[in-house]
């Protein structure tokens, strides 16, 4: 009897395609008036010997039906979900909705890179005014009025005593005036020169650096700047120091790196020399230390400066400096 019922249930189960039909089928067998339930009710009519045996068989049947239903329910649930998901399919090849990420200006990217390197070397960061007194921009840096060294920098004047700073070097003296050695800082910022062509813009960025302590040597200057070049351009890039002249340092040096565009073989950018000038540096002139209120007999120091645009142009192979300030999105979006 129960075997027949199970077979008939299995046959019915084959025809079920929805969860609703499954529920109906389950009710048909196990519901209050279901066939299995009715069977259970007939147990009372059996003899005491037959009853346990028959009861066990019916219960087994009930459990079998329940377990089969459960399995079917899982199967149908999955089927229905799969159907719904299929109907919800979207065109995954349409472009995504972006917020359109903004692009960083290449100068500030490079500037931050330079700052990071010096901060890792233990330098702090200082600032000074961009509209500066002639005193700090020239006089205190050992560039008196009527000195030909003033020709090295075409100056924007605000008045006889006020200029747009032509370099970040005035920050050296301003910091020396308010802090005592040891000093070890960089001063990044905007500087201005009255000049405009393919390789000059009237405003550009420099990073100045100053180290002053009791035993600072020219050898230390080389150590710090070689370390910078290797971190900035790669450890394989050659560096050379050539004697030069800046009124505020003595001895002064110009720092060249092996041309990174042609691997120092010679190209248009390095004018065939294989070398690119990237920095100026030197031991701080004793007169400048004195201007800053520091005893040049007790302390020595070195200073350096570099143009951020120059490095940016080398890094991104930009051949016209003016592009950096036109702010054309066709340019800016490339970075």
């Amino acid at each position: 009897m129960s075997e027949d019922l199970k077979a008939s249930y299995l046959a019915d189960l084959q025809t079920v395609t929805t969860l609703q039909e499954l529920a109906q089928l389950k009710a048909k067998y196990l519901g209050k008036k279901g066939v299995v339930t009715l069977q259970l009710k007939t147990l009372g009519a059996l003899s005491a010997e037959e009853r346990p045996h028959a009861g066990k068989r019916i219960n087994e049947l009930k459990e079998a039906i329940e377990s089969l239903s459960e399995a079917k329910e899982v199967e149908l649930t999955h089927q229905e979900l799969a159907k719904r998901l299929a109907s919800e399919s979207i065109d995954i090849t349409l472009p995504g909705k972006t917020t359109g990420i903004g692009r960083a200006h290449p100068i500030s990217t490079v500037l931050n890179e330079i700052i990071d390197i010096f901060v890792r070397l233990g330098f702090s960061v200082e600032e000074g005014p961009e509209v500066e007194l002639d005193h700090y921009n020239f006089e205190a840096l050992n560039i008196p009025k009527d000195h030909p060294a003033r020709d090295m920098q075409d100056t924007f004047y605000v008045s006889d005593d006020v200029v747009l700073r032509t370099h970040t070097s005035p920050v050296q003296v301003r910091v020396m005036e308010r802090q005592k050695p040891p000093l070890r800082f960089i001063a990044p910022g905007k500087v201005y020169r009255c000049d405009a062509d393919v390789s000059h813009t009237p405003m550009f960025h420099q990073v100045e650096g100053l180290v002053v302590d009791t035993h600072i040597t020219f050898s230390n200057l080389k150590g710090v700047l070689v370390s910078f070049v290797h971190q900035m351009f790669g450890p394989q890039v050659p560096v050379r120091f050539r004697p030069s002249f800046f009124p505020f340092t003595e001895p002064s040096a110009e720092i060249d790196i092996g041309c990174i565009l042609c691997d120092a073989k010679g190209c248009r950018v390095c004018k065939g020399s294989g070398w690119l000038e990237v920095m100026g540096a030197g031991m701080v002139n004793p007169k400048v230390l004195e201007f800053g209120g520091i005893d040049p007999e007790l302390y020595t120091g070195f200073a350096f400066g570099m143009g951020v645009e120059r490095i940016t142009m080398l890094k991104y192979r930009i051949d016209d400096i003016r592009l950096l300030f036109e702010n054309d999105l066709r340019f800016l979006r490339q970075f």
Partner: protein
Amino acid sequence: MRIPYLWLKEFVTITETPEQLAHRLTMAGFEVEALERIGDDTVFEVNVTPNRPDCLSIIGIAREVAALYGTKVTFPDLNIVSEPKELDFNIDILDSDLCNRYAGRIVHAVTIGPSPDWMQERLEKCGIRSINNVVDVTNYVLLEFGHPLHAFDLNKLHDHRIRVGTPATVLGAKEPIAFTTLDGVERRIAPDMLLIWDGKVPVAVAGVMGGSDSEVSDATTDVFIESAYFDPGSIRRTSKRLGLKTEASYRFERGTDIKIMKKALDRAAQLIKELAHGSMYGKLDIYPKRWCSTPIPVRYARVNQVLGLSLANAQILDCLKGLELEITEVTDTGFVVKPPPFRRDMTMEVDVIEEIARLFGFDNIAPELPRMRLGNDDALTDAQRMMRLKQKLRSAFLAAGYTETINYSFIGEADIDRLRLAASDIRRAGVRIQNPLSEDGTVMRTCMLPSLIRNLITNVAQGNREFQLFEQARIFLPREGEQLPEERECLAALIYREKVKSLYRDDTHDFYRMKGALEDCFADTRVAGVTYRRSAEPYLHPGQSADIMIAGTRIGTIGVLSPLVVNALEIKAQRPSIVVLELDLSALLPHIGASVHYRSIARFPFVERDTALVVDAALESSMILDLVRSFPSDMIEETAIFDVYQGASVGNGKKSVAFNVRYRASDRTLTDDEVDTLHAALVSHVSEKTGGQIRQ
């Protein structure tokens, strides 16, 4: 300075190739910027730094070459044979501070004509045009010795006399006098400018340019050659004020060799005699201010201390050997250097140390990182704190889709005019540049907006229909009674959006888009207490703009650009949406939240209630939020507006504002009844204060 290799070789023995020599010179501080092959010669383009005017000549470079190779310079053979005739000529130096020495020679019966080919070629290699044999000789000797000479037509010099003095000294002049230089320009000579005069009139601007009247011409038969030492500062001031820069002034203002000037004069006289077939007469030489070398004491220990070397005493002296320095008083600890007259750049011990380093070779000094104490002060500098704020805001704006721009700090009057500022507005009184390069860069920015508007015009013209820009830089505000303006760090941002068809709909008003980016920044930097009030900026839409306030101070503005401003931009777009932001970072910096203190996380569940109030359309929604937040109950955890609706169903001049309140107690689970009571009280409080009614 252009140096022909073959000319150089006349004075010093060189065994290396031009390329090798160029490298040696470059590494010794005379950067050879280019090598140009001309026939069998090579011309070096040498970059001579302003401290070494002695090397603006063939002989100067020859001296350096000799020092580098350990050889000696051979000077040109000067076989002077003067005619033993009594000289009928006088020289007076009236301002000896400005002219320390003045010498001259007379060459009679010259034949003016072209100079020989070899001389013309050499001049040409150095970039000087040939004029005639006499003038060419003065230029030739200028290049060879580095000392400027001037040739006068002797017969044009009244009274056969030369006087050296300023108009103030010679005439007692108090006003400028007129003088025509040989370029034909009449110039106004200030009373303190040094002139060369004959017996009657001025004949040259000393050390700068001769006069047209006494110039050597084809008709000249007798010449007077001048060789003098002028004060560098005086020459520079005159040259600058006259706007007249010549080969002569370039050298005089850097300082010339007071000794070699005599040799240069002899060389020129001899060459003129040879090439123009004249006869030479005796020399005049007035030298009222004798130059003497300033002794510089040098300590061996200091040399090694500055350079980071451990050179032996003999090695140090060896480095200086080739430089024609007089070295005296050599002891165990140091020595005294007397520099020659062509090295006026050497005045201090460190100048000698530089020479030692240069000749020892920078390449031979090993790099070594310094050993230093850590800084005195571990606190961040103000600059560092500002830098961190700027970096944080930069990241936030980049992430929010704003592209970074960098503009010049100066703008034009027209840029400021665009903003329609009142005449008395301080932003119209920016710092002005005396010598701007162009009209659109005459004044330092007093606000950032004009630059971003320029960027907008550029990019709209390029067909961009949607973009977001930002910039961080300083503005410059004039200060009463101060020489320097106040420099404040600022951030400015701009959204530009035309109505374009887009795949994905997002009709958020751009004001809120920008404000959202700003609020994210404030959240990120833990700035609290920011409020917004309507802005009165004349360049903003009065109904869609706000001043950003913190602790009663305005730290910025945000808003839709006024149609009056937009129309004047003449961009070809139908009512684009343009929103701008300016934020004063210097004012914001003190409000940056310092440290974060953890608060315990609530353990009990929250309960939410939503309510919509119908209020006057003009009511500012922030009032509802403020009322909820300030309601005296510590169970109100959060509130937010989630819908604002205007339409017929809420009545004319009204709007519905729907807000959500989240309640939570820190010590127990709230019951619905408790929350209902509290929420009812809250809503009645808000309704009463706003005149609102619960929307059914």
